[in-house]
């Protein structure tokens, strides 16, 4: 038998968070960490940055998580390659974190963020979220990028900013449902924490099994 980690399960869950740069992926992780830890689920994070370690440094300095539980993968030019075609570096980083912290229940992997076409390899993660910015234009779901269509959970973030740029949230939701069928969608405001519990509920149901 292998080492038993993460409670009653043989391995920690791994989830991916993708989406364009600036859509709020790191902000979402900053909300998820306390919410998950509050439910007794140990969190570790792998970030993917183009050339810097900015996201990792930001999380390490946040006070939300033991800095040793955060790893940065530097992806170089093409961030989506590291989460799809060749996820080796990310798999290694996640393995290392789980070995160091055997009570980890979930490893969150943040993509470097590129365009709407990025998807996660299911060899790397068990479940993935795609975060879009409601203030980035309400036509985003209509563009039908693979992230929007195929992610396990679509997160429409920055709902608080939608009114300021004339984005029609209802229309975004309708368009997203149209392209996603019955795959779920959650609206969030990471500035206030609205919608975070709904995301946790989806994670509980689909990968954490703690409900």
């Amino acid at each position, binding site marked *: 038998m292998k080492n038993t980690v993460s409670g009653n399960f*043989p391995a920690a*869950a791994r989830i991916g968070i993708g989406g364009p740069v600036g859509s709020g992926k790191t902000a979402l992780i900053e909300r998820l960490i306390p919410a998950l830890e509050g439910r007794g689920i140990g969190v570790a994070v792998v970030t993917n940055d183009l050339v810097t370690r900015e996201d990792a440094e930001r999380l390490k300095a946040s006070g939300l998580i033991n800095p040793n539980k955060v790893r940065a993968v530097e992806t170089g030019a093409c961030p989506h390659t590291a989460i799809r075609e060749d996820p080796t570096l990310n798999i290694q980083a996640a393995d290392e974190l789980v070995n160091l912290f055997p009570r980890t229940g979930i490893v969150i992997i943040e993509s470097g963020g590129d365009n709407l*076409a990025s998807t996660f390899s299911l060899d790397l993660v068990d479940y993935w979220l795609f975060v879009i910015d409601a203030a980035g234009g309400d036509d985003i779901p209509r563009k039908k990028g*693979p992230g929007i269509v195929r992610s396990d959970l679509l997160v429409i973030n920055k709902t608080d900013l939608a009114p300021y740029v004339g984005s029609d949230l209802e229309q975004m939701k309708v368009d997203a449902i149209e392209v996603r069928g019955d795959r779920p969608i959650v609206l969030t405001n990471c500035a206030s924490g609205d919608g975070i519990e709904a995301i946790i509920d989806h994670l509980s149901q689909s*990968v954490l099994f703690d409900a």
Partner: protein
Amino acid sequence: MRTLTNIIGYSTDHDISGQLHALSYDDRVEYLLLNREDTHRHRLRVTTDKGTDCAIALDRETNLEDGSVLSLDDDGAIVVRMKQEQWLNFKPRDAAAALELGYFAGNLHWRVRFIDGVLGVAIEGPEKFYLDRLASHVSSGLIEIVANE
């Protein structure tokens, strides 16, 4: 919720196939119908054909396959069955159309196969998604959709 954390064996294993056969007389073999994509996951929540809610959590080295047996005792068994893959096949009009189609499919990271000058695209989501993306290529005659052989 039934929690399933390892693969006991395969439905083709000699001993197991005998047990499954015996259980099947009482209709006590349940199947988890999965698409190819889902078999890559190490955690997933799925319902069997008989309605049992299953939470699967495997270690990172174990992979689900067609015929993986996740539970087996005198009362019943739970077995993975992989869904038949669906393909959309596109035939380009000429070399220029083929280049364009290849570039397009690659850019969208579609999983493809090539058979006798026909590009097959694995349907991993709503079929409409693929057809919408190629609608103008089809209507302009650059490519045509051909039936599965």
